[in-house]
């Protein structure tokens, strides 16, 4: 019974995702709602051949040899190519990537210069004060990266949830300050990024992460 219900839910999500996919040609990557994005991603996970999440053939003997050493579950991760399917990224994932980059750039002037230069055109196009933007972001990044580093590896669930929540609170604050923050994330951050994972995320899990792990 429970299994049947689960199948029905997955089916509904696949249909919703397929429907969302059909509309994707007319929609900007930053225009999706979280629930639309989640449906699309779950559908793409289910039908990997759909083109939004892809697995290609081994590129070389070397990669084949390495892949052969991995367990079956690790040999079938999902890959999101931000240049082709930016809409599959959840906003908090892109924002997390930006926070890490800004935090590391804060410690290295050369890296900071490259990061700022990379996104200069997009920020200009959005009409934002670049210095103010990076200042606000860096403050959040210091807190976020500080928490992450202090937590080290053997972190408790409570600590992990606190870090997750900090990321979402920072995202909310930046969205309030910068109305088109999501446009920046999907236009300027996503195209340079590929995400790979060895686990399929359920719709519930993705929504939970997006709420700050609560």
């Amino acid at each position, binding site marked *: 019974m429970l299994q049947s219900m689960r199948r029905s839910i997955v089916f509904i999500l696949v249909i919703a995702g397929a429907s969302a996919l059909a509309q994707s040609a007319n929609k900007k990557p930053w225009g999706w709602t979280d629930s639309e994005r989640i449906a699309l991603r779950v559908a793409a996970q289910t039908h990997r051949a759909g083109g939004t999440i*892809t*697995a*290609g*053939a*081994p*590129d070389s003997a*070397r*990669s*084949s040899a*390495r*892949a052969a050493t*991995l*367990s079956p579950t*690790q*040999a*079938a*991760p*999902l*890959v999101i*190519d931000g*240049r*082709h399917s930016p809409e599959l990224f959840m906003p*908090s*994932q892109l924002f*997390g*990537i930006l926070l*890490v*980059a800004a935090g*590391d750039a804060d410690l290295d002037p050369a*890296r900071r210069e*490259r990061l700022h230069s*990379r996104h200069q055109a997009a920020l200009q196009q959005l009409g934002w004060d670049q210095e103010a933007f990076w200042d606000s972001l860096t403050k959040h990044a210091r807190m976020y*990266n500080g928490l*992450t580093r202090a*937590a*080290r*590896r*053997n972190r408790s669930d409570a600590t*992990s*949830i606190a*870090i*997750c929540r900090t*990321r979402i609170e920072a995202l909310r604050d930046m969205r309030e300050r910068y109305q088109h923050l999501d446009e920046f994330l999907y236009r300027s951050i996503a195209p*340079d*990024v*590929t*995400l*790979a*994972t*060895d*686990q399929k995320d359920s719709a519930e899990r993705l929504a939970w*992460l997006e709420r700050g*792990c609560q």
Partner: protein
Amino acid sequence: MRTAVLTAAIIATFGGAATSYAQKAEPCRYFTFYLTINVSLTDTNNGYSAESAVTCYDEYTNPYAGAFTAEAHVTDDSSGGTVDSREWDSTNCYTCAVDTWYAYMSGVATANHCWAHMQKDTTADASRRSQRWCHREGGAPFTHF
């Protein structure tokens, strides 16, 4: 005319099964790959620069200093040789594990060549090719797919 293509590639793996002992970092649940390549061809500066970053995340999508291997390459496809490369392996080094591994490579760029970057993940057996940077005699570098 033979066209040379400089390729920057980045590779990472999930780092093996979850460990049962403390002195080995846990594997990553998510990776993000970031890779850019820029080409400058001016009177005073002929060069390429490639920046790669691999970040490891736990199941909360928090950055995590886990076990993973990564490689970044810049290769000249015409000669088949690696121009520059960097490697990272934290699967057997608990103390040196980091959440983000960076590689920055730069070198001389030659006129009338095209450059591109490619991202690979051996675990996924997936790869992608980026836009290409090309140059023609007397003009500025331009990009196309």
